[in-house]
Every structure is written in C-alpha cells, then in structure tokens.
C-alpha cells in the first residue's frame, strides 16, 4: 500500500463507479443474448452490430417513460427508496483491489479506492443497507403485492446474509485478516500439493470448497436473482416490490440489481479465486475474467432453474446452509490450530 493524495483516490473511485455502470449496461445485453442462445432464439440484434447499442436504447426509452406515483403512496419514501438501492449497490465495489499499484508520471497509484481493515464486513454492511430500498419501496407503493414482495425480500436477505457472512469466516481464518488486499496477497503464494512437487495456486476455493459453494448460493439469494427471485415473483406478485414503479425510478432498481450482481461476482472472485492473481501477468484482467465467469453462472442459473417455493427458500437458508457454515468454521478453525501446533 502506498500513500497517495486524496484526489487520486477520488479519480480511481470515479473510474470504478463508471466502469460498473458500463459493465451493468452490457450485463443486461449479455444476459439477453446468452438467455436467447440458450433458448434457441437470436436475442437483441436490431440496434447496432450484434445489438450492442441495445442498452443505450433501453436507457433512452426508460428516461422517456411517464413517471407515475400512486395516489395513496407515501410520496417522499416512494421517491427516496429506489435511490437507496441505487446508491448503496456500487459502494461495496470501493474496497475491491483491482491489481497492484501502477506508476504514472512517477506517482504510484493503488488500484483500489480504499483498503479498509474491515473491508469484507463493510461490503456486507452496505448490502444490508441496500435492502431498505426494496423494503421501503414496497411499503411506500401502497400496494399489497408490493408489500408482500418487500416482506419476502426482507426475510430472505436477512436469512441469507447470515449464511453469506458465515461462509467467508473460513477465508478470514486462513488469511488472518478482514482486508481484501491482505486476503488477495495471502492467495498469491503457491501451494505444494501434499509435498508431491505439484504446485497449485493457494486460492481459497481449493482450501474452502464448502465455504465457496455456500457463498455462491447465498450470493444468488442476496442479490434476489433466479432461482431465488421470490421478492419479484411475477407469477404470484405481479412484479413484487417494484410493481408501482415506472420509468427511471424503476430503472434505479434495475441498475441496483445488476450492479450488485457484478459487485458480488467481483467479491467472489477476490475471496475465492485469488482476485487479480493469475498464472501469468497479474492484473485487473484476471479479476474481470473471473468475475465474468460468475456473471455467466448467474445467467445460466436463471435460464436453467425454476423458482423455489418460499418455504423451501427459508428451509435451505436455516436448515441446510447455516449448519454447513458452522461445520465449515469448526473444521477450518481446527485445521488452523493444528497447523499452528496449538492443538
């Protein structure tokens, strides 16, 4: 970590936020394209080559839509709620390290916005504030479907946040730190496989496979994506919490959902796949490649799996994932103690 003037940090943050927005726009394009191919359709192909201008056309269309506020809505809350979701979603990306520091004009620049000592907890905290956007939006709409969607979202996010938080405790134990920079650095060593001379990178997916799977499941639920998209189940709740939202207020929710998908993919890649560590030429490209694998996985899930029933959803969180998390923590702790010769 190098000291740098505050204004450079602001510029890095600005670039990260804008990259997230662009990434989000092309995530929608990629999702439509991939799902279309999986369903033997063509997908967007009218706007520009391969439909590449589709996200821009979508944005212009959403801006031009009428902005509706229901008559009995709690107006102030109705206006603020989508903004809460939209503001908190990209905030979590600010602690992700994108690479080693680079030097421009003799000034060393960190490729992350900030290296908090509690970076991972910070991401969880920001995520837990983001759920207010959904809850308050559902409440303020004065619509029963919206309220039901909001209640589901609240229960789901609280339940899965526990699994999400506990699944990465194993990583903390192994890395000995909550800072993402330290966690990446801990993974940049190589691991000798049982003294056989075969070395693999010390990525935590190899030492924490159970934690990784739990994290993956909980992350899908945390971002309200299929097959855990109960809060917006269109078959039963019309569209859940954003039934009454239109135009750009609706698109704030949409943006928030996709940005949190990208952020959680970046987090998964950083925690379990070594972040920007690669076989050759470490750098941001490796992180982006790994994150795109997770994003593809998200789309794949949506195209493959039907939605869970609500009681199944809660059952998985509390009866399956939570006990598995605790077992994982116990085992990891014991192994750590044994390797320290403290057992």
């Amino acid at each position, binding site marked *: 970590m190098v000291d740098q003037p505050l204004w450079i940090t602001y510029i890095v943050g600005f670039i990260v936020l804008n990259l997230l927005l662009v990434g989000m726009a092309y995530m929608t394009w990629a999702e439509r394209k991939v799902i279309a191919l999986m369903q033997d359709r063509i997908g967007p192909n009218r706007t520009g080559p391969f439909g590449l201008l589709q996200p821009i056309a979508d944005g212009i269309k959403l801006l031009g839509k009428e902005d509706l506020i229901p008559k009995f809505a*709690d107006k102030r*809350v109705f206006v603020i709620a989508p903004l809460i979701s939209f503001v908190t979603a990209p905030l979590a990306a600010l602690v992700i390290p994108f690479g080693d520091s680079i030097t421009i004009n003799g000034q060393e620049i960190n490729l992350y916005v900030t290296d*908090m*000592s*509690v970076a991972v*907890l*910070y991401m*969880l*905290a*920001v*995520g*837990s*504030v983001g*759920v*207010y956007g959904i*809850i*308050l939006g559902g*409440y303020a709409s004065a619509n029963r479907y919206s*309220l039901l969607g*909001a*209640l589901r979202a*609240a*229960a789901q*996010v*609280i339940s899965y*946040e526990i699994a999400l*938080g506990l699944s990465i405790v194993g990583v903390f134990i192994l890395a000995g730190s*909550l800072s993402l920079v330290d966690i990446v650095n801990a993974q940049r060593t190589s691991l000798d496989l049982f003294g056989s001379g075969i070395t693999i990178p010390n990525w935590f997916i190899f030492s924490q496979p159970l934690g990784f799977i739990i994290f993956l499941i909980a992350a899908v639920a945390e971002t309200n994506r299929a097959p855990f998209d109960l809060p917006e189940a269109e078959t039963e709740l019309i569209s859940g919490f954003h039934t009454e939202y239109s135009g750009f207020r609706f698109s704030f929710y949409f943006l928030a959902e996709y940005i949190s998908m990208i952020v959680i993919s970046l987090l998964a890649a950083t925690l379990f796949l070594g972040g920007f560590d690669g076989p050759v030429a470490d750098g941001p490209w490796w992180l982006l490649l790994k994150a795109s694998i997770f994003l593809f996985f998200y789309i794949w899930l949506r195209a493959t799996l039907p939605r869970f*029933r609500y*009681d199944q959803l809660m059952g998985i969180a509390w009866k399956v994932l939570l006990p598995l998390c605790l077992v994982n923590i116990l085992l990891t702790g014991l192994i750590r103690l044994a390797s320290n010769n403290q057992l």
Partner: protein
Amino acid sequence: MSAEVLVFDILAVIAVIAGTGVVLARNPVHSAISLVVTFVNLAGIYVLLHAEFLAVVQIIVYTGAILVLVLFVIMLVDQDDLPEFHKGKPLQRVFALLLGVMLLGEFAAAVLTRTVVGQPGPWTEENVTLAGGNVQVLGQFMYSGYVLPIQAIAVVLLVGTIAALALARPEDMSRRPRARQTGTISLGHPRGMDGTPLPLPPGVAAARQSPQGEMRDGIMIVNDAESYTDTAAFEYEYATLGPQPGDRKRNITGSEGDE
C-alpha cells in the same frame, strides 16, 4: 478547520436532525427511517474515530438486522393498533420531561468532567498498530480474556429468543379479547389461525378432515407445509362435498380472467 472536523460536523448535524425526526415523525415508518439515518451517520463518526469495526458492526447489527425487523413489524401491524405516539397522559408527560432532563444532566456532567476521569489506557495508537491493527486487538481481547462474558451474552440472547417464541405462540392468541383478533393464517402451522373456528354440522366436520389437515371456514389448515400443495383446499372440499350453498363462485379447472 480541517477536513475531518468538517466531516464530523456534517455527520453530527444530520444525525441530530434525524434523531429529532425519530421522535417527531407522525408515521412510525418515517420514525424508523430517521433512525436508520441516525445510525448510518453515527457509523460515519465511528469511522472518523478509527473504530471501523464498531462502525461496520453498528450498521450490520442495528441498521441491517434489528431495524429491518422493526420495520417488518410496523408494516404488518395495522396503524390503528399501534399505541398513540403523541398523546401521553399528563402524568406520563411530566415523568418523561423529568427523566429527559435527568439524562441530559448526566450527559452534561460526563462531558464537563471528562478531563478529570479520562486517563488514556495502555492501548495507544502506536501499540494497536504494533499488535496488527484494531480488529486484531479487539479479536484477541474478546476471545481470550472475555470469552466467558461473551458466551454469557450469547446465552442471554438465546433466552430472549426463546421467550419471544413462547410469548408469540399461536395458542395464546385465541385467549385475547375478541376485538383484537385478526385473520392471521399460517399455512405451515396447524394451530396458526386466530380464534376458535365456528362449529360445523357433524357430517360436514367429518367430511372436512383429510390426511393433509383440516378444513376450516374455507381454508385448509394443513399439518405441514409439504402436504399443502398436494391437494388444493377447495378442490378437496369440492371433491368430497360438491358445491356448497353460499360458496363464492369458484373456478376449479382454470383461472379467472386473463393472465
């Protein structure tokens, strides 16, 4: 004025404004939102004091978990059922004022005498940095010297959870006054419905017992959630009894209207 002081001032002013909003808002949901804003701003102040862990835990625990549950309850409960917020009895007001003034006095005393009592402990900034940082030191402390108190707190919380479960048992709801009964239905719980069901004619009562559960007032009170989806309640009733007089119009084969 350094940037830190400026940021502190902004955070503090917003926290105080939001704090007054908690007390003054007419709508309990608005109160809860104000409380969220207060907590987030307090977390910001903790960060300024280099207590990042405390800040993050404050947001995860209070903002992310407890307040979400509070909002949950407020949104579910009918607003008319909530106690009046701004119409206390005269005696209540007098006591509230008295206690408030006492609390304010305590705070003032604490602030005024802080130079007298505030002796710095062994954990100065240099020592914390040497030991590996705030989080590491806190972890060492909590899980070595203070293991027993932390376990005790965990047990206390568990007792609280069990007590809440015991208080909220569905059986107790039926003993409440008639006026308070609302139509709470739990599909997963056989006794989840409020109140005692109306007595049925003997033949109908027998016919409405099924392996999945029991039929009450047109609602299937099922034994467990899994069996519920096997047979829809109205289908079961229709199959055993045929159309009932006074039934709402039901469409068994398909859904009504457009989809």
